[in-house]
């Protein structure tokens, strides 16, 4: 099947029910998207399909045919996306394993709601983080949105 990933078309010979996650990771060697649970619980595997965040561990590759897939690698060429920059500025990641998924989810939230409220963030950001970086994720999203100029920057603290 043909998959359009990060603006490139890839012809892959995979089963229709192979989850998109494993096509990305094991066939195309795009390792930024992570496996965490396999049942859409944790969101570490979040990518965009036509701009919508999907949990690629439970999303059959065949369902993405003809759609535009974006992974963390396709978000920017040089980590310059405002969400990525805010993640560094607020020193969000700890182990970092869930953060590709967190960032993809946040990017999608901000695309729909450029100035999300805390309630919007709570509703959209359902990804798990075992290190517990939620406070900084929230701060970083608000910062990108220009919501909270009072936010203390980690580096300047």
């Amino acid at each position, binding site marked *: 099947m043909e998959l359009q990933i990060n603006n490139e078309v890839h012809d892959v010979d995979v089963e229709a029910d192979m989850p998109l996650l494993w096509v990305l990771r094991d066939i195309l060697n795009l390792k930024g998207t992570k*496996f965490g649970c396999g049942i859409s*619980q944790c969101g570490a595997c979040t990518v965009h399909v036509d701009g919508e965040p999907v949990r690629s561990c439970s999303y059959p590759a065949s369902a993405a045919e003809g759609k535009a897939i974006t992974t963390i690698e396709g978000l920017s060429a040089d980590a310059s996306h405002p969400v990525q920059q805010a993640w560094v500025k607020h*020193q*969000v*990641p*700890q182990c970092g394993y869930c953060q590709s998924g967190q960032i993809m989810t946040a990017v999608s939230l901000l695309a729909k709601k450029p100035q999300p409220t805390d309630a919007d963030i709570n509703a959209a950001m359902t990804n*798990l983080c*075992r290190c517990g970086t939620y406070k900084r994720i929230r701060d970083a999203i608000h910062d990108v949105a220009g919501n909270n100029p009072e936010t203390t920057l*980690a*580096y300047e603290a």
Partner: protein
Amino acid sequence: MKKTPINQARRRFILTSATVGGGFALGLQLPTKAQMATDGGSDINIWVQISPDDMVTIKYARCEMGQGSMTSAPQIVADELDANWEQVNIEYVDVNEHIRMNRAWGDMVTVGSQTIRNSQEYLRNAGATARAMLVAAAAEEWGVNASEIDVNNGIISHAGSGRESGFGALAAAASAQAVPETVTLKDPADWHIIGQPFPRVDIPPSVDGTQIYGVDIELPGMVYASIRQCPVFGGTLKSFDASKARSRRGVIDIMSIDDNSVAVVADNWWRANKALQEIEIQWDSNGNGNVSSEDILSTFKASLDATDAALLPNNSGDADQALANAEQVLEAEYFTPFLSHSPMEPMGATVRINSDRVDIWASTQAPEGLVSELVNALGVAQENVYAHRVQAGGGFGRRGGSSDYARSAALIAAQLPEGTPVKLLWTREEDTQHDFYRPLAMYRLKAGLDSNGNISGWKTRIASGSILNQMRGVPLRGGVDFTAVEGFTRLPYQIPDQFQDFKLTPTHVPLGFWRTVGWSQTPFAREQFIDELAVAAGEDPYHFRLKHMAEDELSRHIMEKVAQAIGWDEAPAAGIYRGIATTEPYGSFTAAAVELSVNDAGAIKIHRVIQGINTGHMVNPDNVRAQLEGATVWAISAAMWGEITLEEGQVQESNFHNYRLLRMAEMPVIETVLEATGGFWGGVGEPGQAPILPAFCNAIYAATGTRVRSLPLKHHGFSLA
């Protein structure tokens, strides 16, 4: 059943080559001799390399898994070196080189919140020694007295002659200098890199997908494996029927491992795992197949009454007499369940076995543990094992004790054609059901109050399994596992008459070091029982603690700071209730206060958490803050939902739908109080969690009158709003 032992010829070859060349291939004089590294840099010592362009490479021996010491440990070296932090690169110490050099870089294991406090002295010496050698080189070249030379922010200068230089131009000459026998370390007042909230060096790759974790390794010719382990601990594999699985697309091999697991190897992990689901496996539970959580509870209850417990070392006075004389006597029993680590990156490892070497890539907290696991599994010489460094997707103790996942990967690789790299990845279900769990424990506490409301007599019975005994086979000194009783061995409260003991209570459930270890559970009992005593004495829980802490200035200090931060002595808003607790874990002093409200349906709304820590010296305050924030989330997840239960000998929880973790919507507001009073070096990664659980439960008592003595809270009708 297919059972292929390790290729004997290959094994002999590796052993032989080790005997011939092992241990001496690399120059063991490296630390003290000038050696030009491959990139043109000079090794000043084993920790510091300087290249001609003034870049300073500082070695990092431990493991980064989000706790931040890959940044903070090199900060210590850089400070004594008077380097310019902008010119510092950080590089992992090579594990194989470390072993061949007789463990020259000290401990690599990253556990017990130890990296800073247990390596700061040799890291400071490494920096100071390198600085002295740069100064000696400058003195020689400039013909001036070394004592007149200054080093500041990466610049070496001599005021009298006006000469100055970056590090790079003098690096080669510095590396040829005699190593000074003693160096004077800085006065903490002169630190300028220690104490700075520098950004963590491992964060940028975590935001663009380029960070490499153990599960991300990709090698030419790689195959992928999924494993199913006997669901009952201690059970074995009886037989399996792989006829359906064998014909599935991509399947390369199907094999048994260690008589207790079945693995499928395929050209893609998903294909391997799909095929694994189609294998019909018969297990033998070896007598553990009927064990339930209820059975385990009965065993532990019996342990509370056992007459053959081992004494803790801090017993003093006559607790029974003090209790007999007391005005009031309180007794309570507390229970904390088994818990799994559940790091976001599941267990896994990539292993490749060649005739002359074995390579492993795996997220770990114990690189040398990976090596010894492979030595044991394959019978190879440790000099020929190469453990490669990767970021760990969380560790929390899971990757610091057993390297069981590395063993499985090695035994799979041993059954594949030589040189075939195989990546084993566990499913989340395997990860949850084959952990080394936080020990289940029960505590019985008994204490008296005299007529002045002072604690008079204190008794504790601790019933727990032993991580040290079970995982390591370590005989317990005095019959006590110190990790199970930490929190009770040095009470911050001055109670002259104490009697505390420990009843070892083993089960068939594997035990491991779970973030904050004993300190993750003993404060739940100790700090709530102190609250119970305060209530019985009719006193405020904070002031009741304070009056018993007259001789413990450091415990008092952090608790006072936290109480001030929450405004303890002013009443909270109507409907909001507070709890407080204090702890002394891993060389630091931590206290927490929680404000919450509870509605009629039992939904808890946490309004504010104050987390305080005094680490003595503090290397990177922003990282300390991050660790406190994360530790709070960790503790509240455990408090609300955390439990691993057993039926028919098997763990019932399997994935995040039934092993709940806190999510964004439940995230409380956290304020951190950072204290660095100097005089000691305390840990950071784990201590933050210790006071949260009891402070939270004390606040729930204040709000509802319900004293929660067993976890998780979901079984007491509470939910998190």
